[in-house]
């Protein structure tokens, strides 16, 4: 029994590698082919093994990097959410400082001079800017006085509006910036305050 006695169908299968092992063992028994050539034909070549390992490992690496990407974006979204709430707080406090002017009988914008500032959750007026991290204390308050530094910085910018005079409209911008492994991140929000109560 040798190659030539296979059916055409078998030869096709042989080419595809489906019959390889079984028939070559048979072939070796009956045709007395050398062990060397039998081994060479019957097993995987080094190239095949390398390609197979390459494919498997690239699939695995792909899957794992996909999962770790999903984790790191979840963590980034978390920081984004904290920053968005701190930004909202900055704008609400600025608005509350404008409203306080009404209670005090001041004119619009009396406490909102142009410049850069910081505000605390308890601030009743804008505090001149210093480039410091917000802290979080043991009660969970983000503030500037107590607790451990967080990764967030908050900056409030008061400007005149380009459309209206300063007696009618003021623009408050808040910037929350923080550092991540992938680089610096920034959230900006803007509030238009009018001489209107």
């Amino acid at each position, binding site marked *: 029994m040798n190659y030539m006695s296979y059916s055409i169908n078998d030869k096709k299968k042989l080419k595809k590698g489906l019959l390889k092992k079984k028939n070559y*063992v048979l072939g070796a028994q009956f045709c007395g082919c050398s062990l060397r050539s039998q081994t060479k034909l019957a097993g995987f070549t080094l190239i095949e093994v390398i390609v197979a390992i390459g494919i498997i490992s690239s699939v695995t690496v792909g899957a794992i990097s996909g999962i770790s990407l999903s984790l790191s974006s979840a963590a980034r979204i978390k920081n984004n*959410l*904290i920053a968005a709430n701190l930004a*909202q*707080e900055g704008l609400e406090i600025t608005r*509350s400082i404008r409203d306080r002017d009404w209670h005090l009988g001041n004119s619009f914008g009396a406490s909102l001079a142009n410049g850069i500032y910081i505000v605390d959750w*308890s601030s009743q007026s804008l505090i001149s800017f210093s480039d410091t991290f917000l802290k979080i204390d043991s*009660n969970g*308050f983000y503030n500037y006085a107590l607790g451990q530094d967080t990764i967030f910085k908050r900056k409030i910018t008061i400007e005149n509006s380009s459309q209206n005079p300063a007696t009618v409209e003021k623009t408050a911008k808040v910037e929350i910036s923080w550092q991540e492994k992938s680089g610096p991140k920034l959230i900006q929000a803007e509030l238009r305050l009018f001489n209107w109560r």
Partner: protein
Amino acid sequence: MSKKGFTLVELIVAVFIFSVLMVIAVGSFVSALSLQRRALNIKKVEENSRFILELMAREIRVANPINTTDNGCPGSGTSILTFQHPVNGLIEYSLSGNQVHRKVDGADSIISNPDIEVSRLTFCVSGNAVSDDRQPRVTIILSLKTGGAAAEKANIDLQTTASQRVLSD
């Protein structure tokens, strides 16, 4: 020739290589699974806190009046806040059994997911006293966490402030 098998050494080497590969494969699958759970937990706390804070801040802005009186923060915040909403009626937010409750005209509902634990809800009301020349404002401190193994846990500490829109001295 046809009876040639594996030698013991060959077998041991083969088993060793196979087990090394399996340990690597299983280890990476297990760690992938735990990373995935962690990502899911982060998303859970994030979605819950987004919903809770958004709902509160939206209602507090238009509240009139805020019934809870000023409390000396940060030392003694309260975990219960009541106010009158112009459309929805009398609203009370509170923390009970590690879940956030929202009572509307006495009808209680839980607005946080039972999967997560609300470890802190503090309201800090200021400017609500009569003639204090301040606009009422509420600072909300919200901390959420999930259970699970140490490597899979997620937590978040949030703070935001809402200033009452209606002028009220």
